[in-house]
């Protein structure tokens, strides 16, 4: 039994497990941090971005002025942003039998895996994961196709040239693997291979292995997976949360008695307390509005935004923000808000009880009804005529490289009255802001990451007692910037087996028994002694 590790990103995993003659891919996360190396895609013509000087090496021998632009003291690639894909050379992707998806953030690379690779298997995901995952992919495609950029940049990827570039471009890895965004057609084709599953549903694979999703408490429909035969059990723990937010609580007890537990998707902000961050978010928002400024919240269109809106619902009146307009701008804003209301089965107990009344589970329905929250597909159209300031805008993409957020950065960046509040933990906010410098607007960093922290995970592991733990190597040492914090790593006995991109691990199993059946005809003639 082997584990092939195709992604080095601990929260956007992509592993392949060979187990009892089946080949199972666990998640296919798409590492989008690569887009930070690209120039933003403005929605309307930006004189600033179009007049940037091209990059020429110091000695003047290399001129990549067409591909690379100098902006705010850094060098950016001037082309359609590209993503860092899971490794495709480590094993033949056409041999994969099934792909198990744990949550909608961890499936964004799906079209790259299922299309053009000869993949003929089945993808398993819960209904909310599929529906919201589809929306997020749609949004990504829409962001890219709305501002087409014909130019592709490849010269800079030449190893000799890349070495000469200034950081962080110089240090970017596997740049040849980076790919442009897929098309809607590829998304549809990929998602047509998804088969829906419910929590604790037992899915038989070829009679050899049984897989079963468990609630992981992180997002709508998010799951951990159990992969087992009659005598061996592997638990795959991806983004999980023990906090009480909107999803159904995490199912911990079913993880017990695992031979191997694969642990990924821990919090990216081990030192930031989500509740504290939420408080800071609210107070900064109120302060800015009171001073007459606007608030920009770059965020994903599903997930924590539901909790933010719920928090604001309670906060608005007490903070006297009743008249402030809240805008949610995304091609999928409406769908995301509507879909969140119809997944009662996947919600926490409190929200389920509301549905029985019957009332919508999330209070953003009321915010919309009372006109406090308005949603628009983009800044064009109705929004431009109804837009009032000061206001609060939720919009994507959190990388600040594409989507409507680019427009607001250009619009509000020059005034110190305005504030940008980062809530998503996926991108370094300083890198995200780099091409917009110098900025006058205030920047507040309140990353809200509800996934398990090291304290919670070690408690969990004590509880469920796996024989062996496999995890990304990042979890086996303290973070680089806080090397003295030995509490920010996994300390286990026996020590966890670390993996990195392109690792192939032999999983330690001791198989001793196998299941057979005695025919009833034979069973009746057996005489016990």
């Amino acid at each position, binding site marked *: 039994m082997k584990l092939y590790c195709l992604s080095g990103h601990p929260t956007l995993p992509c592993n392949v497990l060979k187990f009892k003659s089946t080949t199972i891919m666990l998640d296919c996360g798409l590492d989008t941090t690569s887009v930070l190396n690209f120039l933003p895609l403005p929605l309307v013509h930006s004189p600033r971005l179009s007049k940037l000087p091209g990059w020429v090496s110091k000695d003047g021998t290399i001129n990549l002025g067409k591909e690379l632009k100098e902006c705010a003291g850094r060098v950016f690639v001037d082309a359609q942003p590209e993503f860092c894909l899971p490794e495709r050379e480590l094993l033949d992707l056409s041999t994969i039998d099934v792909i198990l998806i744990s949550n909608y953030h961890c499936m964004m690379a799906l079209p790259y895996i299922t299309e053009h690779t000869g993949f003929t298997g089945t993808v398993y995901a819960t209904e909310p994961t599929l529906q919201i995952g589809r929306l997020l992919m749609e949004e990504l495609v829409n962001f890219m196709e709305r501002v087409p950029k014909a130019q592709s940049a490849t010269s800079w990827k030449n190893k000799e040239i890349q070495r000469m570039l200034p950081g962080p471009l110089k240090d970017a890895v596997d740049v040849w693997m980076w790919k442009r965004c897929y098309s809607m057609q590829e998304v549809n084709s990929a998602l047509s291979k998804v088969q829906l599953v*419910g929590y604790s*549903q037992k899915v038989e694979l070829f009679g050899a292995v049984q897989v079963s999703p468990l609630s992981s408490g992180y997002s709508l429909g998010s799951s951990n997976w159990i992969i087992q035969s009659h005598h061996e059990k592997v638990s795959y723990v991806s983004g999980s949360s023990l906090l009480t937010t909107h999803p159904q609580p995490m199912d911990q007890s079913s993880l017990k008695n695992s031979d191997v537990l694969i642990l990924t998707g821990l919090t990216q902000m081990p030192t930031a307390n989500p509740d504290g961050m939420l408080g800071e978010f609210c107070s900064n928002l109120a302060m800015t509005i009171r001073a007459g400024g606007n608030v920009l919240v770059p965020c994903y269109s599903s997930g924590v935004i539901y909790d933010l809106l719920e928090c604001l619902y309670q906060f608005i009146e007490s903070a006297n923000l009743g008249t402030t307009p809240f805008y949610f701008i995304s091609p999928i804003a409406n769908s995301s808000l509507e879909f969140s209301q119809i997944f009662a089965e996947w919600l926490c107990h409190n929200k389920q009880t509301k549905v029985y009344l019957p009332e919508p589970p999330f209070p953003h329905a009321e915010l919309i009804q009372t006109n406090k929250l308005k949603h628009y597909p983009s800044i064009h159209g109705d929004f431009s005529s109804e837009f009032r300031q000061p206001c609060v805008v939720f919009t994507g993409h959190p990388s600040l490289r594409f989507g409507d957020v680019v427009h607001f950065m250009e619009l509000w960046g020059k005034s110190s009255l305005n504030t940008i509040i980062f809530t998503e933990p996926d991108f370094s906010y300083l890198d995200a802001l780099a091409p917009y410098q110098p900025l006058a607007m205030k920047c507040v960093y309140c990353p809200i990451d509800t996934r398990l922290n090291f304290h919670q995970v070690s408690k969990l592991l004590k509880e469920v007692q796996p024989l062996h733990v496999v995890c990304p190597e990042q979890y086996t040492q303290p973070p680089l910037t806080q090397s003295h914090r030995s509490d920010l790593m996994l300390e286990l006995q026996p020590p966890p087996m670390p993996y990195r991109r392109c690792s192939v691990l032999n999983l330690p199993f001791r198989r001793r*028994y196998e299941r057979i059946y005695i025919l009833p005809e034979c069973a009746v003639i057996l005489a016990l002694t």
Partner: protein
Amino acid sequence: MPEIKVTPLGAGQDVGRSCILVSIGGKNIMLDCGMHMGYNDDRRFPDFSYITQNGRLTDFLDCVIISHFHLDHCGALPYMSEMVGYDGPIYMTHPTKAICPILLEDFRKITVDKKGETNFFTSQMIKDCMKKVIPLNLHQTVQVDDELEIKAYYAGHVLGAAMVHIKVGSESVVYTGDYNMTPDRHLGAAWIDKCRPDILISESTYATTIRDSKRCRERDFLKKVHESIERGGKVLIPVFALGRAQELCILLETFWERMNLKAPIYFSTGLTEKANHYYKLFITWTNQKIRKTFVQRNMFEFKHIKAFDRSYADNPGPMVVFATPGMLHAGQSLQIFKKWAGNEKNMVIMPGYCVQGTIGHKILNGQRKLEMEGRATLDVKLQVEYMSFSAHADAKGIMQLIRMAEPRNMLLVHGEAVKMEFLKGKIEQEFSIDCYMPANGETTTVTTNPSVPVDISLNLLKREMALGGPLPDPKKPRTMHGTLIMKENSLKLVSSEQALKELGLNEHQLRFTCHVQLQDPHSDADTLHRIYTHLKSVLKGYTIQHLPDGTVIVESIVIKVSSSTEDSNTKVLLLSWSYQDEDLGSFLSSLLKKGLPSGIC
């Protein structure tokens, strides 16, 4: 041999008060707990004293499963759990859990407040009962206890209706509840995988009907409503608040829109708004089309359909009224019916099945004079139309489900005996499986034949695989040699050596020894060599050794030669073999008894 027992307490050769007891693998399960619309006395509820004479049911039932929110499937639940007494788990889907208490409360109000009955369950009892409910998700495998697991499948029929698969070990039963196999305007079709249950318990409301296409029925329905409206008549459509009502509302709403009709459509009871809200929030339970488009246009927001007020019934001019309940046995639909029955311009359309004893059932059978309470009679002059919109599987649908699930036995409930008989014949003929149709209180026993799961040690398995030719085909049985150890409810198959080791026993060798006399005028050593050569030529592929100590060994068999004391030409062969080589040993002894061929040197 293990058995599965099925006893209907209700819905056995009958429609109404569905309640079926199943005993499987030592577990007792109650499927549905309904009331009968046709009775107002004790017969209204299933006879729970069948389970136990004295008191509470908790000790006798492992779980209760409710298939959907119709009262003939859940109407007796608070009575059973709170008045008879049951504290174990009750399973139902989320929509059923949401809607069921509302209908129960409605039912309670009609019975207690309007008819003044006492000794009935209270609002508090409904609440207490619902606290015992554990919601089920589709396809989720719920472990009721270590051995009993249940799994729900989509059944169509009404919002949240489910079929359930009940499994203990390798024995299983599927109960369909009510289902339909064709998608309609708001729900999808029932689906189940090839789970091969020992028994499939299916409803059989429309056992003998093969219904024409839905489109035709819809066209008919619209035509009749339209004609009646055109001539100034009033149309009453008795429905249950949730289910068919929404489908017909969608139908009329689009028709009114298209034809630009102005006559008002009303929906009685305050439930409409609320009911439609349930459909909005549980949209994942509706059909594909509604689910796909719900963000742009929600099908359950009606423009033409308004809330009904009692006084509207006397308004002049045409109108369409949806009123509850659906079988005209009580409540608003009955009141309106009494008002309108005398006018032949009016029409009542019964869109679903009516239980025996209800007014709905009577007028559908052509009765034109009805006896009402207090000796009054009512002349029925209005037109009575029957349109089967109730979403049950027809004969074709039931056969289709059998093909999907591939059960070993079939059991029919929730239908009329005569019709069941017909369907039973058809099923037995087409699928060659046994089909049962027990009456209430009658027990059907089915013997099952489960394979016995055993854990085999990997060493033994590998050894067996090395022994015999091609890899074992998982679908073909195969004989193997090993020791079966039964310990703490688990079965292990291991090699004899391992078994001995585990049990701390010494191995005893069992050897067979025999003497064979042979006429062979040679020296002992020569005879032995002749035997060796002979066996070499006969036994190809065996290890045969001629040892210097004067023995020949074939596998574990030892052969020695000595001369008889009386006659040196008579040789006495000593053969000895272990029990494991019994076959070879007895073959050799009979071979050597025949003597050695002369041609050997």
